[in-house]
């Protein structure tokens, strides 16, 4: 049994799974348990629910505790009309995955644009730009994402006839742009002031200095944080299922209502989300290690 060590005192501002860095044995262990547990269940549940396996199990139970219900289920299995829902869902999943990923990717790209603008605005010396950026960040961060999605899709969507995908991406990007604005601002301010001074002393303008000197260094600083935002956005993209968009969650919900059983589809979707975020958080950890290795 591995020794359980208390987590080191480090308050990480992250929305996602803990990042399994090399040093934290406890986090790495729990990461492994979660990942392989989820993958195991994703393999086990469809196999366990295959007709021959079910027949074997149910007949065992029926032998021990005979009941009319079990007999009825065994009859169904033997009639050949039994459908393995767990396998069926897995076949449906790719459509939902495609929607979830395209919403996530488009949103993160657009959110990066909003975030960069907000971050630059927050450090701008032009009072108007500064106000717009800081108010944007304050307002958006103070309104729940789900409310924003409803607002853009139902309230504004009625006025401007927004297409579902577009409304989804716009609301996600608008919201995440505010959070990323904070990341960009912090990243820009993390570059030592001497860099800006050296650039100015050489005759560069402030905007040239930001473009050529500050931002390239900012990107390296904030890449892991952006990775975390990507994970958080992937999860929050499930909220767009309130729109007419069939993402993973909406797919599961539809499937559940069509078959009168929500348990299998929601279980599978939860596990799929878990696997995706765990893998992504591992990738972010890898990226962080890389950046720390050649920290220039």
């Amino acid at each position, binding site marked *: 049994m591995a020794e359980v060590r208390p987590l080191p005192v480090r308050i990480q501002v992250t929305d996602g799974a803990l990042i399994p860095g090399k040093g934290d044995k406890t986090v790495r262990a729990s990461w492994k348990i979660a990942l392989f547990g989820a993958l195991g269940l994703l393999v086990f549940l469809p196999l366990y629910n295959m007709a021959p396996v079910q027949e074997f199990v149910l007949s065992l139970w029926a032998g021990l505790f005979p009941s009319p219900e079990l007999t009825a289920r065994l009859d169904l299995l033997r009639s050949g009309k039994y459908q393995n829902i767990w396998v069926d869902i897995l076949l449906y999943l790719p459509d939902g995955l495609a929607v979830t990923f395209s919403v996530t990717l488009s949103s993160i790209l657009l959110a990066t644009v909003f975030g960069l603008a907000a971050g630059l605005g927050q450090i701008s010396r032009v009072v108007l730009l500064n106000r717009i950026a800081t108010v944007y960040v304050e307002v958006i961060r103070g309104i729940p994402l789900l409310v924003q999605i409803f607002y853009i899709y139902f309230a504004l969507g009625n006025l401007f006839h927004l297409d579902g995908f577009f409304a989804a991406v716009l609301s996600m990007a608008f919201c995440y742009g505010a959070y990323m604005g904070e990341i960009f601002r912090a990243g820009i301010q993390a570059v*030592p002031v*001497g*860099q800006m*001074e*050296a*650039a*100015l*002393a*050489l*005759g*560069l*303008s402030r905007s*040239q200095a930001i473009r*050529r*000197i500050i931002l*390239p*260094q900012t990107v*390296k600083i904030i890449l892991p944080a952006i990775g975390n935002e990507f994970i958080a956005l992937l999860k929050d993209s499930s909220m767009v299922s309130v729109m007419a968009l069939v993402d993973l969650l909406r797919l599961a919900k539809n499937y559940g209502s069509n078959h009168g059983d929500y348990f299998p589809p929601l279980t599978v979707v939860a596990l799929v989300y878990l696997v995706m975020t765990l893998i992504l958080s591992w990738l972010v950890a890898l990226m962080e290690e890389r950046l720390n290795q050649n*920290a*220039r």
Partner: protein
Amino acid sequence: MPDRVRIEGASKSFGELQALKNVSMSVGAGETVVVIGPSGSGKSTLLRAVNRLEVLTSGDIWIDEDHVTNHTSDIRRIREEVGMVFQNFNLFPHLTVLQNLMLAPTCVKKRSKADAEKQAVGLLARVGLSEKKDAWPEQLSGGQKQRVAIARALAMEPKVMLFDEPTSALDPEMVKEVLDVMLDLAREGMTLMVVTHEMGFAKAAAHRVIFMDQGEIIEIGSPADLFERPQNERTKKFLAHIL
């Protein structure tokens, strides 16, 4: 010598603290002026005001005909002609040595890449770092970094060079290689304004030494006069501490 840098009545306050109190001085064309003084004496603030990295509360600074402290002046054009070397080097870590040298000439002066590269290679040879042109700043020692920083400033072909404690962040064994480069510059007739604690450099290169304390110039003199025959009590006390 005609004045290249002229400072008249420079004052600067940071809130309550008065970092500079009505300071006037000049640096002649081709002259090397060394500013010494205890920490907090305002010498770095004065130096940084010359290219307006520090904005004065009151007072005027001219570089030749350019009025640095007039906010309508094109400060970028003035800065092109004022090289600055910092205590912490401030090399751009995401650029190679060569790119560090080429950035400002291509970006500000719009010189061609080939042109800028040729010049950069020449400057690296001058500071003795030809073999480091493709290195990253993090791969250099402190002394090498500072020599690259000097070459980077020279790439803009400035008519004044400002040095803000250029050897203070260096290990002792690397101080000389940097001072040698500065000494060469002084001998070649570059105009230098140097804030430093290196009395050896001041004696070897300075035409005049300025002693500052608590935001004021206490004494100005040739190195021989100021070091051997200081007039003011505060100068004597300071020199007794460091020599």
